[in-house]
Structures are given as C-alpha cells and as structure tokens.
C-alpha cells in the first residue's frame, strides 16, 4: 500500500474520530464529541481542512521508534510552511503507538514521538509557544485490527490544528 493510500484511509478514519475540544480541527486522539465542522473547505488553502487533507496532518513511525523518516520530514516541512503562512493557528501534536506494547510504555513512547515532531516543527521556525504535545499511547488507534496493516497506521503523530496564535 502506498503512503498516499494509507493517508486517505487515515483521513477517512479521522472523520469518525473527532475531537472533544470544539476549537480543535481533526485529530485522531480525542473523544467522540465535537465534529469536523468548522474545518472549512479543503479547497481553501488557509483552512484546517486543507491542512488535514492536502498538507497531511500525520507522520508514521517504525516499531518502537521516534525517528522521523524522510517521508515524515517532508510532511512536517509542509506542515511548517502552512503554519508559517497561517499564524492564527496553534497545534497540538498527538503521539500514538500501536497495540504491541504495554500501556504505560506506549504513553511514554507516544510522548517521545510527539516531541520529535514538535522539535522538528520548532526547528522549521514554528514558535514553541504555538506547539503543545500529548500522548495517547495505544488508547486511540485509527484502525483496529490484529495485523501489521493497522499497526503501521497507528504508530503516528498527528498535528491537530486549533485556534489561537499562542504565546
């Protein structure tokens, strides 16, 4: 499966896993309340919907790793460009793990992944005051199946756009 197809699946799954925080757009981690409404039109390059669908809101990791692949770096550079162009938005980076680890370790691993993304964005000129990180460990898979296919999609860090320019 190509990365692009994976991304489409992930984006499709995103619609189901919306946010508890009504000011957040997208994100795979939060609880069921809220909606994808307010993301705007993906045709509008300044909309969170555009960020989620065209820029790409997530990067993937290999097993037990928080290293950013070349592919991930390319996605994050695009994210950074978008965030530089749209300074009214903040981000929360959600780190996630697949289910093949213990609960506590996976929370720590997700924190490490989220931090790797946050540091990369920061190095690309996004002020650290605009970036928060959270780890969901293995608590919020985008896809649940007992197979590599799902685990690959679940080992991810998702950049969730929220309102507010930050400090």
């Amino acid at each position, binding site marked *: 499966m190509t990365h692009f197809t994976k991304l489409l699946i992930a984006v499709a799954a995103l619609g189901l896993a919306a946010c508890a925080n009504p000011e957040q757009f997208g994100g795979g981690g*939060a*609880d069921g309340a809220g909606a994808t409404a307010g993301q705007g039109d993906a045709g509008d390059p300044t909309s969170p919907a555009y960020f989620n669908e065209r820029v790409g809101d997530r990067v993937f990791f290999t097993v037990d790793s928080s290293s950013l692949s070349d592919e991930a770096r390319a996605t994050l550079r695009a994210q950074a460009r978008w965030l530089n162009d749209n300074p009214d938005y903040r981000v929360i980076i959600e780190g996630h793990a697949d289910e093949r680890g*213990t609960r*506590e*370790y996976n*929370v*720590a691993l997700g924190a*490490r992944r989220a931090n790797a993304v946050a540091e990369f964005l920061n190095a690309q000129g996004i002020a650290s005051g605009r970036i928060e990180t*959270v780890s969901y460990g293995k608590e919020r898979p985008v896809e649940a199946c*007992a197979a590599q296919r799902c685990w690959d999609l679940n080992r991810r860090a998702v950049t969730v756009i929220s309102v507010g320019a930050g400090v």
Partner: protein
Amino acid sequence: MTVTRTLALLLALIAAAAFAPIGPARAQSEGPLRIEITEGVIEPMPFAIAPFIAADSSAEDYTGRITRVIANDLASTGLFREIGRDAHIGRVTSLDAPIQYADWRAINAQALIAGRASVSGGRITLGFRLFDVVSGQQMGQGLEFAGDVDDWRRMAHKIADEVYSRITGEEGYFDTRIVFVAETGPAENRTKRIAIMDQDGANLSYLTDGSALVFAPRFSPTGRRILFTSYDSGFPRIVLLDITTMRRQIIGEQEGTMTFAPRFSPDGDTVVYSLSVGGTTDLYSLDLTNGQRRQLTNAPSIATAPSFSPDGRRIVFESDRSGSSQLYIMPAGGGEAERISFGQGRYGTPVWSPRGDLIAFTKQHEGRFHIGVMRVDGSEERLLTASFLDEGPTWAPNGRVIMFTRQNAGGDPALYSVDISGRNLRRVPTETAASDPAWSPSLP
C-alpha cells in the same frame, strides 16, 4: 494466633458487630488435612459444603447463596474441588450434633464445611465449622461472624478465606476487590470507565462516567483510595480518588508535562509516577503529606511503571535506557538503578509481590506477550502465560495469584487470573470488556 488475627480483622471490619469465636480452641496445623501450595501439579482436594442451616425463616433467603459463594471461592483457586450437593449422603442439621464422618467419607470428601445463619433486625449471624473427614475431627475452632445483612457476601468470603487459610497455611484472598477499566464502544473510540467489583465479579460499580479516557487504576494500601490516569484535561493527569467519599483531586500536575503511571508507597503517604517532558519520561515521587516532589531518575530515555517493594525501601520500574525495555531496581529515594532482567525480549510493568520475594512482569518476545515472575535479583525467571497480548499483572494480597489483562487477536480485552505456578488460568467474569485490573489489599 489465627483466631486473634481474625478477631482483630473482623472487629475492625464490622463496627459494633456481635462477634465471638465459639467452640474449643485447637491448633490450626493439627491434623493431616493440608494443601501445600507448591509448583508441582496437584490434584484438587475434594470437599463438601453442607447446605448452611437456616436458624429462622429470614435466614432461608441467604443460606443457599452463602453456601454458593463459599464453594465458588474455594473452587476458583483450582486447589479444591467441590463434591456437589446431589452426591451428598449425610446431612448437617445442627452445628452441635456429631458429624457422621462415614457419610462424607463415602462420597470421598476430604474436607467438610458446615454452617448456620440467623437473621434478626437487619443483621445476619454466620457460624461455620471445618471438618477433616479423613481423620474424623474438627479442624480449627468454630467461628461466628455477625454484621449487616447487606454484607452477607463479605462474610461468606471471610469464611472461605478462613477455610483456605486453615488448609493451605496461606492467607486467603476472597474478601478483596478489583478495580479495573471497563471498556465499551469501538476500539477506535473506546469509552473507558474506572470500575470496582468484588474479587468474584459481584457488586460492580463505576467510579468514573466515561467522559474522559482513563487507565491503570491502583489501590492505596488500605483500599480506600485509588490512583489512576485520566485525560479529563485533554492531557494525561493523575487522579487521587477517595472511594468512600468520592472526593477527587489531581496530583503531581505540572504545566507542559504529562503525568501518568502512579502507584502508592506501602505506607500510602507517597505516590511514585512518570512525568514526560521534552520526549523524556522520568520517575518522580510526591509526598502526599507535604506536597513535596522529588525527581527519582534523570536519563534521556523512558522510565515508567514504578512499583514499591513491600518495605517501601526500593522501587522496581521499566526503562529503555539500555536500548530496549528492561526492569531495574533503585532505592526509593532515587539513585543508582540496577538492571535485573537479562532474558531475551522486552520487559515491562514490573510489580513487586506483596510477600517481597518475586517481581511479576509483562514480557514481549517474538510477537507474543507473557506474564512472568522472577526473583528480585532477576534469577529464576518463569513465564506463566502466553498469548497475543497479555499485560499488566497485579498480585492477590497473599502473593499466590496474579490477575492481568488478556486480549486475543482481534478480540476485546478481558481479565484473567493465574497461579504463580502457572496453573489455574481463569477468565474473571466482567459485564463488559475489561483491562488494567488492580487487586485490593486484604480488606480490613
């Protein structure tokens, strides 16, 4: 000795209870009726429980259920096998009449439990006797328990504890509770609630409402308070909940960090936990009496899942500082950590046995997950289970049984228990999918 201990225990339990040991004193270890809990394969000891005598018509509502609770407790250990009522030849119509041992020998019962219940004014009084059928004598002295009728299950568990203890020489663990995470809804958006139930699955209630993601609840040493991790704020935070008052507070919170994996010290005054910041996860302790926080580890890696030794002087935890997750022990105040796991695979969620002799852990190796135990120095590692995903062991207060989470491939998680011998693997009944069990201490 046992009587004194039990007396203190029960007096503490049921305030204003009319409770008195009855019958002649007899040394607990007397007689041949004995199960040595060893690692060898054993044949369960056949026992019979005579239907408890109802001393009055109100007691008739309870005697059948009490008898079942006691029988189920004992059978659930795998150490005992009940000889059902249908096979009984003998009857016990009075606790004071001589036992017709031949009737019970004829059905091959080695132990016989008999009891009597009376109910009056909202209170129930339970008496029981244990008999060694083979040698034809009473084992230990008779005991009587009294309390609120609503506590009948606890009293039945106390009787089962007493029987277990007299026959095995180990402390019983039936009058205990389990706090765990009840899971409902799709895996991609699971609703998780902190739930609590009796060790046998009865008396289920929920301690959180499912609005926030929660995980890994832990009991305080008295069983009155629990710690767990909640995403109520959008970030993992540690909640301290008093389950008698339902008073709830966030502890260890620090802006810009994530805090999780809390566990009480054996005196209940300190909480040790993980704090993630900048991609690094270290262990901290928080003194609940004065709010003082202390950083215990300082490494550019992950340190999590801490658990105190029963004497409170050491902490076992998992860390990937060597490159993969392994188990370490350090002084409770921090300091140099010694690695204790050296086998193949990744080790996590170490939990110190209440007896102090063993560490239970989760091991991940070649695509399988195991619950295992090792000695405190890392020697004599034994894997007790294997499945697609087994994790998060918790000890019964007597250090003989471990409960954990099992999830089969593509399935929902459930609670299981296993003896430290690796025998008697059982699913623990829960209404919903369930994970992250924590066993209470013996209840006062």
